[in-house]
């Protein structure tokens, strides 16, 4: 019962957030220089007839709520209009490129988990030791290492000097290795620090001391207590990490010339292709909000304290 109530509350909050986001997204049209007609016309000649046609098509003479509702209801069916520069439905442009970004993000997630959790646990268990200090320092460096700078160093080292990986473009999975690493290292540093903090906290619990006293092996303690009990705090930053991939992908795709959604955003922003920008903003907002919602729900379900109505 408690769970249902909490999940329902989170769900309502997520829907409200999505509404606010869609309003802000729609407002982009008004923000764009030259006004909405100009933004929707693109490079077509602005004869009075075409302007009138555009005004009629996009209900620009109607009051704001009507216009907004018109746009939103179309967007909900996946119709984001037509790109101004390419004259192609926005939705088909997105679906052409979504694979690149999803592949990149999935690979990056694998790297983040494979690096962040072991590093954080190792640091947390050997607290204050040399390993802990090195890991903490390295994670701090990667926390301030912008993805585009990492991308550049990786490109130079592994693609140009060592020639292990291709320099630019798409193709087989080898094209994604360096971009995925560039995208993953920042989030991995965040994950390392959270895992370390969680492991420290768990490590100080009496049941760990007791497990040690009982003579359980270090590995046994790790496996059955530390890993499991550190999972909860780590889960809470999953939303943050996914948001990190979204923004990171913009820079990394640009650095490696990958034709994904991130480079599409840069391209459409510089060309003021508002319908494409709107679709991308709404999409990324949906991803972040849904990810946070899932994390919240998972947290409620996993955490026995909340499940039983305490805390």
């Amino acid at each position, binding site marked *: 019962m408690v769970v249902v109530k909490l999940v329902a509350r989170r769900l309502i909050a997520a829907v409200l*957030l999505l509404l606010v986001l869609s309003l802000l997204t729609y407002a982009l049209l008004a923000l764009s220089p030259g006004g909405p007609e100009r933004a929707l016309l693109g490079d077509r000649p602005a004869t009075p007839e075409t302007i009138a046609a555009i005004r009629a098509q996009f209900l620009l003479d109607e009051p704001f709520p009507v216009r907004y509702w018109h746009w939103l209801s179309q967007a909900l069916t996946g119709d984001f209009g037509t790109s101004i520069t390419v004259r192609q439905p926005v939705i088909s442009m997105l679906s052409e490129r979504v694979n690149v970004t999803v592949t990149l993000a999935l690979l990056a997630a694998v790297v983040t988990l494979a690096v962040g959790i072991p590093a954080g646990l190792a640091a947390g268990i050997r607290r*204050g030791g040399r390993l802990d200090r090195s890991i903490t320092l390295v994670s701090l460096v990667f926390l*301030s290492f*912008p993805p585009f700078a990492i991308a*550049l160093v990786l490109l130079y080292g592994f693609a*140009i000097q060592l020639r292990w990986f291709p320099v630019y473009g798409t193709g087989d999975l080898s094209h994604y290795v360096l971009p995925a690493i560039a995208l993953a290292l920042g989030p991995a540093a965040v994950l390392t620090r959270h895992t370390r903090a969680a492991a420290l906290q768990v490590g100080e619990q009496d049941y760990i001391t007791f497990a040690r006293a009982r003579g359980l092996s270090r590995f046994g303690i790790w496996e059955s207590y530390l890993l499991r009990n550190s999972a909860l705090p780590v889960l809470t930053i999953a939303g943050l990490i996914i948001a990190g991939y979204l*923004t990171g992908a913009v820079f990394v795709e640009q650095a490696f010339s990958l034709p994904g959604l991130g480079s599409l955003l*840069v391209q459409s*922003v510089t060309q003021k292709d508002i319908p494409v920008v709107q679709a991308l903003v709404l999409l990324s907002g949906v991803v972040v909000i849904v990810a946070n919602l899932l994390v919240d729900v998972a947290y409620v379900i996993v955490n026995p304290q909340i499940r039983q109505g305490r805390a």
Partner: protein
Amino acid sequence: MAQNELLPRGATADQSDAFTGSVAAAGRKRTPRARRPALTIAAMIVLGIMLIAAAVGHWIAPYDPALQNVGLGPTGPSAAHWLGTDDLGRDVLSRLLEGAHTALIAPVLIAVGTTVLGTTLGLLAGYRQGWLDTMLMRLTDLMFALPGLLVLIVVVGVAGGGYAISVITLIILGAPSDIRMVRSVTMSQRELAYVDAARTLGIPARRIMFRHVLPNLAPTVVANLLLSFVFALVALAGLSFLGIGLPAGTPDWGLMIQENRGILDINPWAAIAPALLITITACAATLLGDSIYERLDAGKGFSE
């Protein structure tokens, strides 16, 4: 208790209790304690050098940063050009020195703006509570739910670039985390005896907030200032890396990475040097901010 934990921003509160901390401290040699100041000092020196470069870079640059030598083209490091030249034969070192100014001034401006806005609102929300607090918390919730850098790219890009809009957007994007931090520290200060005493003496709330509570927030404020600086530095460099915000040819670190990434095989320094400078500056500021947070955390453990 003396805990040297490097933790994510704002995640220090759920740390261990004093008892186990001090046992751990007594049981082990506290080498980290001796090491930390060395790193902090190194960070200060790095930041100092960067600030000097930003101040005098224009005058000590060996060449005019805009001087082209198309016949020379891109070359690797040499005696005449320590960090080589870029595509148009411009001296990379001179462009880096010239760029230090734009790279650092705007982030400093943004950091100050963010801190003033965040501290004022956080102080008000934490001290007065009530509707203002509720409203601000909803607002920060909303802003935390949006990917900040994407908002920046879209707003600055669609509005057609420009210095002012980048600065204002970054101040607004950076403020929520400051508001949260300052608010939570204010709320814990509010319960202390000196605030009660001041209130009993009939000192007006505004005076208590800004003359009595604010000085006690100084470490938080300074740490926030540094971390806002890092956020702004990386965000602005990222924007110009994407080619948004600045006209082509400006000697800007982010833009240099973008423009010179095609000549990585001829003169890697043209792109890697600005990337490393951004990273080193960001690292130093993060390190310094972190060490202040740590001291704050240690101090909190002591006073409680």
